[in-house]
């Protein structure tokens, strides 16, 4: 049995001992050590950067490479294979930067759209009742995941698209869509004077869908009756603009691609480089997304479906109310990294000559101006920003679907 006096003696003895300890072992103090390591690291990094920067400046002076961003105002002097905005070889490097950037965005958007589509289709197919469909999903994923993307891009570009027939013997759909070795051509809808009416109605219809959903939800809360929102939305988006078009006398002309000599002119042209890159990116990334979707759906315990069934819920409602929300928790972070991967992989455009940002700027502009640091720096900043935007959007989406736990 301790008595209180003994405890006091013990405590004061301890206090004395620990103050002794701190005053003698200062180099063992974790805080001091930590400070020391960090100072050493800072010093090391500083030395490294000073040396590197010094060397770089010397080298650039010696070889006559200029610094600074003045080159952006100079004329580029070369043309691009395709551009979403007007461009001539007399335009500046700054403009070509924008052209490249838009092309990168274009192929990324197309890629993300189709990759998500393929990914979800094959990811869900994995759970089909049909054995053949299940096996098809496995085959798709295992084949396209395990072959390097560059090889797939080359395959589509050099093996598939280049064996398409020449312009005069194009594959065609009706007299409107043509596919040949030079590209894909389809008609362009050109708006006449009253076209803006139809576009406005379309925009209103899309807005109307959101309003419709909200109204239907409120109605269900009050009366309990369910409204066929999906069918109504589709009908609205399709028929309202059609009616508007009819009422304004169809203010559109169609610009059909037409064969003149050895090539098609008019309509919309999709160059084979864009096609090959989009297809390869979509199929490749789609395989990874399919795996993510599969993982998400598999992560849901069977008990969830059983509980929902025992309440009497129908299969489609079980999917939309119970399975999908829970699966998205797992899928969304994976989608985030896959989308960012796709954007980075789009730089493979350099291998087949699609004029994306990397190819056009770091590829050609760097070659011509020799200003490696500025061009590379500007380019990677753009990729960082694009990926940060994707991350931000996906994180917002993720928070909306994540769980609260104890």
């Amino acid at each position: 049995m301790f008595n209180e006096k003994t405890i006091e003696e013990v405590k004061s003895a301890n206090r004395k001992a620990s103050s002794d300890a701190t005053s003698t072992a200062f180099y063992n103090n974790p805080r001091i050590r930590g400070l020391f390591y960090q100072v050493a690291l800072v010093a090391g990094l500083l030395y490294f950067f000073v040396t590197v920067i010094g060397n770089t400046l010397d080298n650039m002076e010696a070889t006559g490479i200029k610094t600074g961003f003045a080159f952006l105002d100079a004329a580029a002097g070369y043309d691009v294979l395709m551009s979403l905005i007007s461009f001539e070889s007399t335009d500046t490097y700054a403009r070509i930067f924008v052209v490249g950037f838009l092309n990168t965005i274009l192929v990324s958007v197309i890629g993300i759209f189709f990759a998500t589509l393929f990914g979800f289709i094959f990811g869900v197919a994995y759970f089909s009742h049909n054995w053949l469909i299940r096996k098809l999903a496995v085959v798709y994923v295992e084949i396209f995941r395990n072959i390097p993307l560059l090889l797939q891009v080359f395959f589509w570009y050099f093996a598939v698209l280049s064996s398409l027939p020449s312009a005069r013997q194009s594959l065609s759909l009706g007299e409107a869509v043509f596919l040949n070795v030079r590209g894909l051509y389809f008609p362009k809808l050109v708006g006449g004077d009253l076209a803006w009416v139809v576009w406005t109605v379309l925009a209103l219809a899309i807005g109307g869908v959101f309003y419709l959903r909200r109204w239907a939800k409120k109605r269900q809360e009050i009366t309990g009756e369910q409204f066929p929102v999906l069918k109504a939305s589709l009908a609205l988006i399709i028929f309202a603009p059609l009616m508007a078009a009819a009422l304004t006398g169809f203010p559109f002309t169609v610009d059909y691609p037409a064969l003149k000599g050895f090539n098609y002119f008019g309509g919309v042209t999709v160059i084979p480089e864009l096609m090959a890159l989009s297809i390869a990116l979509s199929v490749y990334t789609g395989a990874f997304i399919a795996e993510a979707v599969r993982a998400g759906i598999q992560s849901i315990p069977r008990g969830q479906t059983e509980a929902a069934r025992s309440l009497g819920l129908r299969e489609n409602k079980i999917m939309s109310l119970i399975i999908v929300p829970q699966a998205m928790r797992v899928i969304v972070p994976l989608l985030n990294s896959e989308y960012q991967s796709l954007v980075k992989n789009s730089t493979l455009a350099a291998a087949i000559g699609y004029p994306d940002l990397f190819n056009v700027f770091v590829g050609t502009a760097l070659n011509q101006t020799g200003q490696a640091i500025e061009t590379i720096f500007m380019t990677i900043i753009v990729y960082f920003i694009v990926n940060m935007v994707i991350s931000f959007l996906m994180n917002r989406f993720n928070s909306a679907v994540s769980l609260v736990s104890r």
Partner: protein
Amino acid sequence: MKEFQPSSPRSAPVKSVGLIAWLRDNLFSSIPNAVVTIAFISFLAHYIPLLIDWAFLSANFKGETEAACVNDGACWVFVNAWSYQFFYGTYPPEEVWRINLTIVLLILVIIGSFTLPKSIRLKTSIAAWLLLPVVGIALLDGRLLGLEMVSTDLWGGFSLNVFMATASIVVAFPFSFLWALGRRSDMPFIRSVSVTFIEFFRGVPVLSLFFMGSVMLPLFFAEGTNVDKLIRVWLVLIFFMSGYMAEVFRGGFQAVPKGQYEAADSIGLGYWQKIMLIILPQVIKISMPNILATFVMLFKNTTFLLIIGIPEVVQTLQTALSNSYWLGGHALEGYLFVFLVFWGSCFGMSLLASRIERTMNTDKRD
């Protein structure tokens, strides 16, 4: 008291088991299902015989030149004729034993890491792995060993892909582990530097890293130093891989139960002792499937070297296809061959990763 006589089991009604039941449930369970099945089967029945005919029955296997491809089917003669370059690039044929020796050493080291007796396994494997790239470079280059020097310009083909990937992961492994530790550090400056490093190398397109390596790196060094192209690529791959592996390790660290750290602390182990003796082995074990997956990704990325002009296997394929003696349009055969080679290696490694994951899961349940 009544004695309990369990009734004897009957066998299931014919309609509910066996092949018929399986067919009914899996292929014909509903009308749309049945339609899909029939469509599938007719598609396969039509195209599979055509494929087999093209690839095997009517194919050309023997011969040396384009002229030997007389049958209508695939011209495997093309693949045959170029197979040396596909694997070894333009390495001089009389020295190719050096590449083969390096590959054999690699296989031995891999097997050794799994099968050596446990007492010496860890130390020997680590030493072997770290020595492997050095030995490999020495063998392939030749100068250090007094062999005929083979310039890196001549290295190429699939063996180059394998070599670059392996050499990178060996160095990237410890390097990225340090970055992962740095990211977990309590010291704010070290943590920020680590995070910046990791996020930079993960967020930047790998192609830009290669360009930086080719174009910017020479500017960083003092005038006159000429670093070999492959060494520069090696450095780039190491940094690139480290960014991704550091994140894999981060996941591994988080998966090690907190109780392990606490137990190590309570025994009185210092920081590095705790890390090396207790945490590292567990992190590696837990992260193994992800490490393999990252390696597969790196391996696929070695094909990007083509864009900076290094003659790895896809580049070699392009060269072969545009060679004037073989302009018969053998793209399909060439691509299929290279597809198979890559697919085989990557799929094999993924299978290995799943197998390791499954073994670990059963371990955990005990």
